């Protein structure tokens, strides 16, 4: 009975072995290359245009001619997914940039501002936190009306409070660290300590978080498109493809399953890249 529990010494071997052969990193890099190619030069990969209709071949299951099948107007789903990459990836990167910029500014104000600033920004973050991210996004969409820009802002602002809190924690941690104490003891100026020690050390993890949040943002944005509140269906954006496939779910499941798989793959890719970046940056610190 008791022998089934692993001895504590055996535990570190699994991550260590994985680190020696980062197969997941190679897979993620390869996937990134494919996604980047699809976003920048879709015509290299696509077999048809995004809107090329073929009414003789509607709702065809995946085959050699149509790798991902066709939709209700006979459009080739594979080509549509490829052509939609730029829009989806653009929304993800844009939203992640909005989110982290806001987070860096608010987090820095909360951690470094004077008492009043830090208290009021802290309160603002608590307020923003009272709204679950999706609801905050929905509120913005209701006010601004659906569009690509709204989608980027809605997802970016919706996810910002969580990251802002993280930034604040990082900066507060750096402020209390021995190297800052040493710099103060050496008589360095406040500005110099901030520029040379606190900001670089507390903002560096954001590089990894940026990669992580691209995948998250794409998932959020596609959820909104799926609800019919993002990009309207004829466009090949991935969330819109899901939304367009919904009425045909009983007869043509691939129209929703395949774009979903692609979104999950992209999210996994950016998550994996982010994780590796994170451990790489942490190693650099030591």
């Amino acid at each position, binding site marked *: 009975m008791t022998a*089934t529990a692993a001895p504590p010494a055996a535990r570190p071997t699994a991550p260590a072995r994985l680190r020696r052969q980062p197969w997941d990193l190679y897979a993620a890099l390869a996937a990134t290359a494919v996604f980047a190619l699809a976003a920048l030069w879709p015509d290299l990969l696509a077999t048809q245009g995004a809107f090329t209709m073929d009414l003789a071949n509607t709702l065809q299951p995946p085959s050699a001619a149509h790798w991902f099948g066709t939709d209700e107007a006979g459009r080739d789903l594979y080509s549509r997914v490829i052509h939609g990459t730029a829009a989806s990836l653009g929304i993800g990167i844009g939203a992640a940039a909005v989110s982290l910029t806001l987070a860096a500014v608010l987090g820095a104000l909360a951690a470094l501002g004077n008492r009043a600033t830090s208290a009021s920004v802290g309160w603002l973050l608590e307020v923003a936190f009272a709204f679950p991210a999706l609801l905050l996004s929905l509120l913005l969409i209701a006010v601004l009306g659906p569009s690509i820009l709204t989608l980027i802002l809605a997802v970016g602002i919706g996810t910002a409070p969580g990251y802002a809190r993280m930034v604040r924690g990082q900066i507060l941690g750096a402020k209390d660290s021995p190297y800052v104490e040493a710099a103060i003891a050496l008589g360095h100026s406040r500005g110099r300590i901030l520029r040379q020690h606190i900001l670089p050390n507390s903002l560096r993890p954001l590089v990894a978080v940026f990669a992580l949040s691209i995948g998250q943002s794409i998932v959020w944005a596609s*959820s909104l498109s*799926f609800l019919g509140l993002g990009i309207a269906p004829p466009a090949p954006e991935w969330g819109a493809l899901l939304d367009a496939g919904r009425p045909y779910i009983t007869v043509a499941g691939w129209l929703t399953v395949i774009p979903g798989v692609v979104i999950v793959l992209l999210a996994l890719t950016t998550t994996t890249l982010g994780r590796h970046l994170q451990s790489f940056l942490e190693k650099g610190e030591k």
Partner: protein
Amino acid sequence: MTLTSSSETDAAVPGREAGAPRRGPATLRLVAGKAVGAVLVLLGAATAAFFAQASLPGDRATVILNIRAGQAIARTPEELAPINAEYRLHDPLIVQYLTYLKGLVVGDLGLSYQQHRPVIAIIADQLGATIVLTLTALAFAWIIMVVWVTLTAGRGPVVNALGGFFDTTAAGLPHYWLGIILLLVFALTLGWFPVIGGTGAVGIILPALTLAIPLAGFLGQATRTEFERSLDSPFVLSARMRGMSDVGIRLRHVLRHAVLPAVTLSGWALGATISGAVVVEAVFARPGIGQVLVTAVSSQDMPVVIGIVMLVAAFYVLANLLVDIAYVLIDPRLRRAS
């Protein structure tokens, strides 16, 4: 919150700043401070929601009439007058704001632009279905998480890595996609469940699972770390020496210690699960406030949008306040911290 294990979970424990006394033996004062903080947060949320509504572009009365008629045309002053009177749009903004706040306190959320009914009645019609779904999902998530972590944590490197991998993957699954897969596999291919769920007992299983699986992964990530730490602790060793079975130790001793972070996260998770419910109700065509919210957002029916958003925010703040207070009551060490 010293008991949460990783830095990522730090983001999930709100409601501890404003007004909490720095140090004081009286637990009551701490609890009161947290309650004041929660009220301040809600006031901020209400204010933000009000000004979101007020910032809707265009003349409000025209917007309301057009939403109601489904048109986009200019309106005559005679048409607009009753609307302006009904929604009191000619009052100064500050009066409207105070009226709105007073309404929130007594549970009056205003009139829907589109349905011409009180928002509170619209919500009351649909709230039950969503609450049942959310609570069922939370229960499912806990069951899945406890079984999975108890079976896989601390079982050697391979099983462990596998368990952790599933936690991470499950936590990252988008709700809509998981919902579609479950629908395709269990409702359409196997025929075990109805395709259109309805509100019956069988119909709730797939939607609740859709919400529960990512949540179980999320809670599992937090629990697994604690679980493994507890497996190495002296009380486990002494229990083993007393001849207690491995399963008994895991369930009676280790699990108790390991679930604490997940309890904290559950307060946060309820809010996230309600967000997820919006999507899941759309996938399974279930009635609920999620459906109402999506319709209201696309028709810009602001009182309904704000009513639901405020309700969820209030619920969320309250849940976290209760978790915070429960923590202070359970763990005396926290009474001096924060």
